[in-house]
C-alpha cells in the first residue's frame, strides 16, 4: 500500500484524477503428463497499473516485475495525450460487503499432498480404462489486490484458489478419444476427486462404442461442458456493454424483451461464496453483486464498467475487470444459469434420435457476434430411441445461439460448475444442424 500511495501522490501533481491498482499472484501447479508427475511449477507475479485523467483525457501505464514504478507516471502522461475522454469519476470511499473468497487452509496444502491428489485421480481413471494417458493439473494459489484512487476510494482483499483438472487421451490406431473435466474453488476442501473421476469415467463409458449419424436437423442435449464449449462465448459477448454500445450486440435494443425461452434465467454473480470468480469489489473499486441478465427469458441487464456505464448514462454493475492487471474492461464474474425441472435421464429418454454434445472444437471461430456457432464435435454421443448408443466422429454441428435458446425442449434440474466460472444445468435444444462426412 505504501508504494501505491507514493505513485498516487506523484500522479496527482500532474493529473485531475488518478487510480493505482496493484495485484500479485503466487501459484503452485503440479503437472502430470501421460500419467506421470512431470513438472512442479511455482509462479510469482505482480503488477501495478496507473490510470490518470489529465486535461480531460485518459492515460494508462502498467509495470510488472521489479522495476518500472518510477516510469509509471511518465508513461501514463505520454499516453494521455492521445487517450479517450475522461468521462467519469473514480468511486469514492465505500463499505464493501464481505464475500468469502479466502480459505486459510490453502497455506497448509503441501506440495506432497497435491501430488497424492493427482495420483489418486489418475489411479481411479486407470482403474476403469488401463491404457488411458492422463494429463492432470493440481493448482493452489493465493492472490491479493489493492486499489486506491484520488477520490478517496480504497480497498484490498486476498483470495485463495485450488483447482484440479484432467485431460485423458486414448489412442487406438488412428482413432483418438479425448475426455476432460475439471473442478475449482477457493476452498481446497470443496474439490471432490471422486465426483470428477466419476464424470470422466462416464464419458469413457459412453464413448466405448461408436455410432454414426447422418446429415440432418437433430435435437441436441448440451451437457454443462457442452454449454460452456458452444453457447457461452456468444452470450458473454452479447451482454458485454461494449458490444451493446457500439450497436454490434443482437441484444442492444432488447432490454425488457422476451428474447429467450421463458424457462431460461441467467445471472452474473460476484457474491458466490468461495467462487473463483467472486470478489467484494471489481478492479475499479465498484462493489460486486448478483446481477440478473435474463429473467424468465426477458433480457434485464448488461455488464458495465465505469467507462461504458458513463457512455450509456447508467451505473457500473461492478464488472470492470483487468486481464493481467491491465486496462479495465467489462467482463463476467461467475455466470449462473437457472435450473429447470427435467432430469438428464428424462431428456435422453425423450429423444428418438439426437446428439449429446460435451465438447466442440472450432465453435468460437464463426460469427460470434451474430450468435452463430459451428464446429467439430470433439466429444459427443448419439441417442437412439431414448438410449445413448455411442460416440460420434467426423461430425459437425452448426446453429445460432438465439435460435437455439428461443425455444428449449427442457432445462436440466441439476446444475454444476464448469471451469469455476459457469454454473449450468444441461440444456435440451431442438433442431440443430448436424453435418457428417460421407452423406
Amino acid at each position: 500500500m505504501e508504494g501505491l500511495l507514493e505513485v498516487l501522490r506523484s500522479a496527482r501533481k500532474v493529473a485531475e484524477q488518478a487510480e493505482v491498482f496493484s495485484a500479485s499472484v503466487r501459484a503452485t501447479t503440479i503437472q502430470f503428463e501421460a500419467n506421470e508427475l512431470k513438472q512442479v511449477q511455482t509462479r510469482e507475479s505482480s503488477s501495478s497499473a496507473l490510470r490518470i485523467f489529465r486535461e480531460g483525457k485518459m492515460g494508462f501505464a502498467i509495470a510488472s516485475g521489479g522495476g518500472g514504478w518510477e516510469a509509471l507516471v511518465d508513461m501514463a502522461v505520454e499516453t494521455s495525450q492521445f487517450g479517450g475522454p475522461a468521462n467519469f469519476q473514480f468511486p469514492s470511499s465505500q463499505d464493501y460487503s464481505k464475500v468469502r473468497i479466502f480459505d486459510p487452509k490453502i497455506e497448509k496444502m503441501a506440495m506432497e499432498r497435491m501430488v497424492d491428489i493427482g495420483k489418486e485421480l489418475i489411479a481411479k481413471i486407470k482403474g476403469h480404462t488401463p491404457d488411458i494417458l492422463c494429463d492432470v493439473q493440481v493448482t493452489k494459489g493465493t492472490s491479493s489486490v489493492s486499489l486506491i484512487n484520488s477520490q478517496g476510494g480504497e480497498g484490498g482483499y486476498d483470495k485463495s484458489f485450488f483447482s484440479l483438472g484432467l485431460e485423458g487421451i486414448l489412442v487406438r490406431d488412428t482413432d483418438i478419444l479425448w475426455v476432460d473435466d475439471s473442478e475449482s474453488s477457493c476452498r481446497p476442501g470443496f474439490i471432490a476427486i471422486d465426483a470428477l473421476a466419476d464424470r470422466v469415467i462416464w464419458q469413457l463409458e459412453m464413448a466405448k462404442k461408436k455410432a454414426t449419424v447422418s446429415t440432418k436437423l437433430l435435437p441436441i442435449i448440451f451437457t454443462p461442458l457442452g454449454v460452456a464449449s458452444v453457447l457461452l462465448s456468444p452470450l458473454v459477448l452479447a451482454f458485454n456493454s461494449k458490444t451493446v454500445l457500439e450497436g454490434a450486440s443482437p441484444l442492444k435494443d432488447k432490454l425488457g424483451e422476451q428474447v429467450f425461452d421463458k424457462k431460461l434465467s441467467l445471472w452474473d454473480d460476484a457474491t458466490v461464496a468461495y467462487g473463483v470468480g467472486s470478489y467484494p469489489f471489481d478492479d475499479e473499486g465498484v462493489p460486486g453483486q448478483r446481477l440478473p441478465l435474463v429473467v424468465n427469458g426477458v433480457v434485464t441487464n448488461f455488464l458495465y464498467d465505469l467507462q461504458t456505464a458513463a457512455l450509456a448514462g447508467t451505473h457500473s454493475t461492478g464488472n470492470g475487470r483487468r486481464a493481467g492487471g491491465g486496462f479495465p474492461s467489462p467482463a463476467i464474474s461467475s455466470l449462473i444459469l437457472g435450473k429447470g425441472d427435467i432430469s438428464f435421464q428424462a431428456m435422453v429418454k425423450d429423444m428418438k434420435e439426437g446428439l449429446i454434445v460435451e465438447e466442440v472444437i472450432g465453435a468460437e471461430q464463426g460469427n460470434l457476434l451474430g450468435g452463430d456457432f459451428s464446429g467439430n464435435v470433439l466429444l459427443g454421443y448419439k441417442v437412439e430411441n431414448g438410449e445413448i448408443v455411442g460416440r460420434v466422429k467426423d461430425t459437425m454441428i452448426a446453429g445460432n445461439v438465439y435460435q437455439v435458446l428461443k425455444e428449449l425442449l427442457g432445462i436440466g434440474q441439476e446444475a454444476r460448475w464448469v471451469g469455476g466460472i459457469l454454473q449450468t444445468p444441461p440444456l435440451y435444444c431442438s433442431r440443430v444442424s448436424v453435418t457428417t462426412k460421407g452423406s
Partner: protein
Amino acid sequence: MTTLFAFIRVKGYNKGVRDLIVDALKGRGADYIEIHFEESQATSIVYRGEKLEEISKARNSGGNIRALVQGSWGFVSFNRPDGLREKVSLAVEEARLAGRESFKLFPTEPVADAVIPRLKQDATTIPLATKKELLDSYNDIMLSSSKIQSTRINYHDVKRRTIFANSEGSYIEQAKTDLSLRLTAIAREDNEIQQAGLSLGSNGEFSVMEELHEQARDIARRAAALLAAPQVKGGEYTVILDPILAGVFAHEAFGHLSESDHVYQNENLRQIMVLGKRFAGKHLNIIDDPTIPNLRGSYKYDDEGTPTRRTYLIREGILEGRLHSRETAAKMEERATGNARAINYLFPPIVRMSNTFIEPGNASFEEMLGDIEEGVYVKDWYGGTTTLEMFTFSAGEAYMIRRGRLAELLRPVVLTGNVFTTLQNIDAIGNDLEMNQGGGCGKGGQYPLPVSDGSPHIRIRHCVIGGR
C-alpha cells in the same frame, strides 16, 4: 533491485550477471539448471468503432529457473531477482518431488553469444503520435464505408531482451522485437451481422503497417458484401485454399502433430508418426524453419540455448522429421531442432513451431480451378484449432466454384477433417508461396507466440464443410 536488468542493455558478454548466475547454480546436485532473465517494453493501441479504447505502455521484468533432477522438472518464476540462490533451491526441491527415470538432455555445445537484430525502422522507436495517426486513417476509411457498423483495431509492439544461462556454461543474450496488427470491419443490416478482417505482423519493422489504406477499404467492402451472401450447403467438396488458409492448415493440422511433446510419450501416436512413413503425394513438402531471416518466427537460439536449423517435417510426401526440445529429442533419440520456446518468463519452454510452410509446387491457380465441376474456394482465416487427429479451421471468405470458374461469394465457412486423410487428399500444389505473419500461436496456456506460416494455393478433394 533493477540493476540486474540494466546489464541487459550492455551489448555482448557481461561478466556481472554471468558471475551471479554461476554462483547461484553452484553445488546444487541437480542434473541440469537454467536461468532466464527478461525485460520488455510494450505499446498497445486498441480501437472499437470510432472510440480509441485503449492506448497504453507497459514495462515488464522478471525471470525464471528450471531445474532437472532425476527426470523431473521444477520451475520457479519471479519478478524480483533477489534471493536467487533460494529460488534455485525451491526449483530443485520441486523437481525432487517426482523422481522419475533419469535421462540425459540432448547435448548442445555451451555457447556465449549476443544476438541483437538490426531493424531499418524499429516499431518501438516510432512516436505514439505517428502510430495513432496511421491507425486513425485506417479506422476512418473502414467506418465511412457503406453498411459498416463498427470496427476493431488491435495494435501491439514489444521489444524484449533476454538472458539465458545454464549449468553447462551457456550464456546467451538476445533481443527481439515483435509487431502485430489486426483490422476488423463489422457490417450490419437489420439483424444480420458480418465481419471481415486483416491480420499482419513483423519482426518489429514498422513499414508493414504503413500504406494499408487500400486494404482497409477492401476489408470494409468484404464485410458489407457478406451480409447478402448465402450460406454454403454443408457437405463434402473439392476445395482450393488460398496461401493464408493453406498456411494455417500447415500449422494447425500438421505442424502441431509434429511437436514431439505430443508424440514422444504416447506409444500409439508414435506408431502413427513413424519417420519414413508416407503421408501424402510426392508433391508435398512441409518445413519449419526459424533460420529464415526477418520473419516473426525467426530466432538464432531457442529458449534452451539450442541453435536453430531448418527441419523438413514432410519431404516428398514422406514423414522426415519433427520438432524437438532437448528433452523430447533425447527421449526419441533424434536431434534437438531448436523449437523449445516460451512466450515469456512466466512459462517454461515447450515445443513450438517457428516459420512453418508448404513448399511451392508448379500448378497455377487457373489449372487448379480448371477441372472442378462444383467446389469451394476458401480464403483468409478467423483461426483454427486441432486435437491431433482432427482439425477445424475457419475461412474468412469463401466462393463457390462452378464449372472451373469462381462463382458467388459465400458466408464464412468452417472446414474440418481428419489430418491423415486430408493430407492424402491434397491433389495440387500451387507455385505462389506467400508467408502470413498475422496472429499468434497458442499452446499449453502460452499465447500469443510470434510465428509465421505460409503456403502456395493448394487443392483438397473430399473436404467437409459445415453449414446448414
